């Protein structure tokens, strides 16, 4: 890790090579291949650059003399045609030979993702399941196995990308696309919509968590369970407000009367690492601000603001939502 980070930092004076959303800090089989590809391509480019510029330097500064016809022809044909064709051909063959593996099919778990403006509906279909475990705005995957990812979009094209785990694939309305990911180590990462989809496209991210298979199975079981009932007075008032304010028309909280499907499922909201598709921390204050005026954080968002609520009411709602672990 240290050494790789140092390699990143030295040539570019960047400190951002490592981290949650870096293609140069891979945590998945496909991302590893892509990062190797990047370094090989970079090396190829550097070799070509040094060779061509070295040659220019040599013939103009070090030995500026007229060349004989044969030498000049050898230089132009060899250095200008044959050498770059071979180097580019070799790099092309290398890149192409990796491509089929990037499309390998998954086994076991299937994750179906539906992109909305500007959030993600996520369904987990374990092997042989007859109905899915529904979640949103976060992708969890077991390590050491290849999971199938099925992609769809509601209204416009989006693109699904977790740089630390693999390449990106577009989600297209009315058409199913697919990819697969094989995380090799457990960790927390960040994904991002990578195709312009509207005003808040840049705010359409998501958390990604990879975990050992047993941990993943335990998490999935908890995720399948209905919501915890509210604890304490404030949260109980919040639960009542949630229904009376009509949140349940858009949001589902399984185990309650709220069963809307317009917005993200909130049954286990507080167990996610981030709020509102990767843009806010999962904290009470952020929840309060979000519910009172979501458009402040995401222009064009399809959730109305609830700024007519009093501070105490917002506080109660946030308290209820933070209890939905």
């Amino acid at each position, binding site marked *: 890790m240290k050494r790789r980070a140092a390699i990143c930092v030295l040539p570019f004076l960047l400190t951002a090579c490592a981290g949650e959303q870096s293609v140069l800090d891979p945590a998945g089989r496909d991302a590893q291949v892509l990062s190797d590809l990047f370094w090989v391509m970079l090396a190829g480019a550097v070799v070509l650059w040094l060779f061509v510029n070295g040659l220019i330097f040599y013939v103009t500064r070090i030995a500026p003399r007229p060349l004989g*016809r044969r030498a000049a022809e050898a230089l132009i044909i060899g250095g200008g045609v044959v050498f770059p064709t071979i180097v580019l051909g070799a790099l092309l063959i290398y890149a192409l030979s990796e491509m089929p593996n990037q499309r390998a099919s998954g086994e076991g778990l299937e994750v179906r993702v539906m992109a909305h403006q500007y959030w993600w509906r996520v369904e987990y279909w374990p092997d042989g399941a007859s109905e899915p475990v529904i979640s949103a705005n976060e992708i969890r995957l077991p390590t050491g196995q290849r999971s199938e990812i099925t992609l769809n979009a509601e209204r416009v094209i989006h693109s699904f990308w977790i740089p630390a785990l693999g390449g990106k694939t577009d989600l297209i309305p009315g058409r199913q696309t697919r990819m697969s990911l094989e995380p090799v180590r457990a960790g927390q990462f960040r994904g991002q919509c990578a195709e312009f989809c509207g005003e808040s496209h840049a705010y359409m991210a998501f958390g990604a968590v990879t975990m050992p298979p047993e941990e993943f199975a335990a998490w999935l079981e908890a995720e399948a369970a209905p919501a915890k009932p509210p604890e304490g007075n404030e949260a109980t008032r919040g639960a009542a407000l949630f229904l009376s304010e009509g949140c349940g028309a858009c949001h589902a909280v399984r185990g309650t009367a709220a069963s809307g499907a317009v917005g993200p499922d909130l049954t286990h909201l507080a167990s996610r690492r981030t709020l509102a598709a990767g843009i806010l921390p999962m904290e009470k204050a952020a929840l309060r601000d979000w519910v009172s005026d979501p458009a402040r954080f995401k222009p064009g968002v399809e959730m109305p603001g609830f700024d007519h609520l009093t501070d105490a009411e917002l506080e109660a709602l946030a308290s209820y939502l933070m209890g939905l672990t």
Partner: protein
Amino acid sequence: MTEETPFRHRSIWHMVLAPVVWSLHFASVYAITAIDCAKTGTLDTAQLAIAALTLIALVLIAVITWRSWRQWDYLGDYTYVHDKPTVKHRREFLGHAGFLLGVVSVIGVIFVAMPALFIGSCQ
């Protein structure tokens, strides 16, 4: 170079023929792949067709390039500057340009066809 047809001396078409073959090859490869994937969901037929088309394109380009090389007549006088308003210079210029375009087209056709060698699925 007395055996050359008068046509080629003046024709700009002969000069650009190799890239024209390349572009037709390019368009057909894309179209065939799309059609095969849409109709059968596999690339078996498309791969064969692309192999055949590539072979044909390479032969055509080789012939054009060879004819351009002869027209340039480099080994006759070792000139690659053709800047005089004379018949000879015009002829050699068109041959020279056609030859270089032929070389580029060979590389282009091979690079365009190569993915079909490695990628066997419509995914």
